[in-house]
């Protein structure tokens, strides 16, 4: 009896998978494939009450949550606001280009910066529950499905107790807020800066998280993202051609372990932009394709690969051919969109302010429409709160309303837009991807 229901489940999964990958072409192709019982029987999860059973039709953002404020309980100073290359966090030196719009935060910290006229400028810390709560409230208000909580493997090792405590606390805040506002949430490990050993450590941390937070408890965390009947876990940073200290093989082993015998989790891989043709930013190794075929979703890293002018030419062919490849190989595909790019302060280079201009949302919408018209069904927005590289979509101070920065400057949201414009525009993308009519290549008018 038990076995039969098992088989039924497996059959169901197969049907769903097939329907998913083909649905954009013909929804009627639901002939059940002949099921060869797999050697290892898949783990089955109770998804009763789960709100996000697939990444399909979702628009989710990345959530850094890496900032800390001097005076918060994290004891990490102005972590990630500050810039170690010029002496910390003070006028003339910062890691951030944008300045958060602080008007709605209830808990704030006086920063070393002042506005013209001498008023002090304040900042938030995601270590505080209230601030993360506000971010998830915004997601709900503007119709953004949720976020991927970034976990930097280099920062959560036992040798970095404060780092680990920080990311766990931010995750805890986020899980709470996600449930409260019914926003999708998912863990994304970032392998940047890892060694081979660190990659292996990821599994340990992942197991720890499950114990700590009961991540897969459908009652406790009904908004944790599931995909293909499994909780989704994302690993970012494999196949990049920038001399990393870990290999595709390391990640391959990791995936084997994480999935385990019962294919315990669905895995989304963050891969370089030219992953399919193995050129430019991508390691020229066919191993990457073998690994991708074993995972469930890929998300190519598009930040900095094009601007508004070059987008169609660069992304057009890649998107369509990527999706074709993924359909053939039964892997789901999530393109990345980003509002613009600016890291003048981080790089201490005035030429890098607004190096990829936002153009009042034209650039973001061009990518949203490009992805949708090319057949994408979900989006990854980089990022919700990334102000070091200036890709944040959350509320930031506008041009003309920024603190002073000695010989440097802060970059603002265009002064004729509201500070919530990019949240709103991302929300419009959400409506389109949820299936609402009336959207197209033309940027919606607010």
């Amino acid at each position, binding site marked *: 009896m038990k076995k039969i229901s098992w088989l039924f489940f497996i059959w169901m999964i197969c049907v769903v998978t097939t329907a998913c990958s083909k649905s954009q072409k013909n929804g009627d192709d639901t002939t059940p494939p002949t099921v060869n019982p797999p050697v290892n029987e898949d783990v089955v999860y109770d998804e009763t009450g789960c709100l996000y059973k697939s990444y399909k039709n979702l628009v989710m953002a990345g959530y850094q949550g890496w900032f800390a404020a001097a005076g918060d309980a994290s004891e990490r100073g102005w972590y990630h606001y500050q810039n170690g290359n010029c002496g910390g966090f003070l006028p003339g030196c910062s890691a951030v280009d944008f300045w958060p719009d602080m008007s709605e935060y209830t808990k704030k910290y006086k920063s070393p910066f002042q506005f013209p006229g001498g008023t002090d400028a304040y900042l938030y810390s995601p270590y505080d529950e209230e601030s993360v709560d506000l971010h998830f409230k915004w997601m709900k208000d503007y119709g953004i499905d949720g976020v991927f909580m970034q976990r930097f493997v280099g920062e959560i090792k036992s040798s970095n107790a404060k780092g680990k405590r920080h990311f766990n606390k931010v995750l805890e805040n986020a899980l709470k807020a996600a449930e409260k506002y019914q926003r999708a949430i998912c863990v994304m490990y970032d392998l940047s800066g890892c060694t081979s050993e660190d990659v292996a450590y990821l599994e340990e941390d992942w197991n720890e998280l499950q114990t700590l937070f009961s991540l897969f408890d459908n009652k406790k965390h009904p908004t944790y993202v599931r995909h293909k009947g499994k909780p989704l876990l994302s690993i970012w940073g494999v196949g990049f051609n920038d001399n990393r200290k870990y290999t595709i093989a390391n990640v391959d082993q990791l995936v084997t372990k994480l999935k385990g015998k019962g294919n315990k989790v669905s895995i989304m891989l963050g891969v370089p932009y030219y992953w*399919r*043709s193995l050129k430019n930013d991508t390691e020229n190794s066919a191993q990457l394709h073998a690994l991708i075929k074993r995972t469930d979703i890929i998300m190519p890293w598009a930040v900095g690969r094009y601007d508004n002018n070059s987008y*169609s*030419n660069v*992304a*057009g*062919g890649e*998107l*369509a*051919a990527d999706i*074709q*490849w993924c359909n*053939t190989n039964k892997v789901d595909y999530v393109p990345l969109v980003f509002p613009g790019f600016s890291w003048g302060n981080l790089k201490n280079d005035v030429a890098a302010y607004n190096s990829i201009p936002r153009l009042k949302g034209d650039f973001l919408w061009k990518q949203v*429409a*490009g992805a949708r*018209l*090319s057949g994408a069904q979900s989006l990854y927005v980089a990022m919700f709160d990334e102000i070091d590289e200036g890709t944040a979509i959350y509320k930031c101070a506008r041009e003309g309303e920024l603190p002073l920065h000695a010989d440097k400057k802060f970059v603002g949201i265009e002064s004729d837009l509201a500070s919530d414009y990019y949240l709103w525009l991302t929300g419009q993308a959400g409506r389109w991807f949820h299936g609402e009519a009336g959207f197209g*290549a033309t940027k919606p008018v607010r």
Partner: protein
Amino acid sequence: MNKLKYIFFATALALGMTSCEKDNYDGPTAGLSGRFVDVKTKELIEQDIILGTTIEIIEHGYASRTPQALIVKTDGTYANTMLFANTYTVTPVRGNFLPVDSQVVDIKGQTTLDFSVTPYIRVQDVSIVKSGTKVVATFKLEQNVINNVKKIGLYAHSDARVGEPMRLVASEINLNAPSDPTHVYTLEIDLAANSNTLKPGNKYYFRVGALIDAGEAKPNYRPAVRLDI
């Protein structure tokens, strides 16, 4: 004297046979042929005979990874009947369709390999007619990628393999924008203004093409028509 001749011949023969032995391999007996087919319409995808889609093949078992190139005929078929039987990695490159992966193919005897691909652009509802002193082409475009359409063109040549790279006269419009699927595009060649090249009283081939703005993409076409001008 005769003896000398005899010796000379014998030596020559011996030398000749020696060298023959060293070079005594079979000629190429295998081949690869096939078609490029539109995954949706199942029609052949028209190509250029020069500077068009290429199929790169790399024969396994050699250190060199330098590919050999097979060209594709204008009608979208290809054939190379003089290959050595072996395993090859086969990759269509620089095409007018969404790139497809390499595949490893055992080429034995005359092997067939079709490619089912998505053309960048489908040129549809084509009409090319002579109207007064002009040749007028009308057509619609359906593009399968979001890239701009770089240009559309009406090309004329005395050879049936006419196309963008091979034309005597071209009438082109640089669109540099996405195409409008409902729009009827019109291109004209003024025969009077090209009387030096398209000589009255002769027959010429005319073909319309549309080029997507993507990397090394090649134009998409419909078959050429022959007109008496």
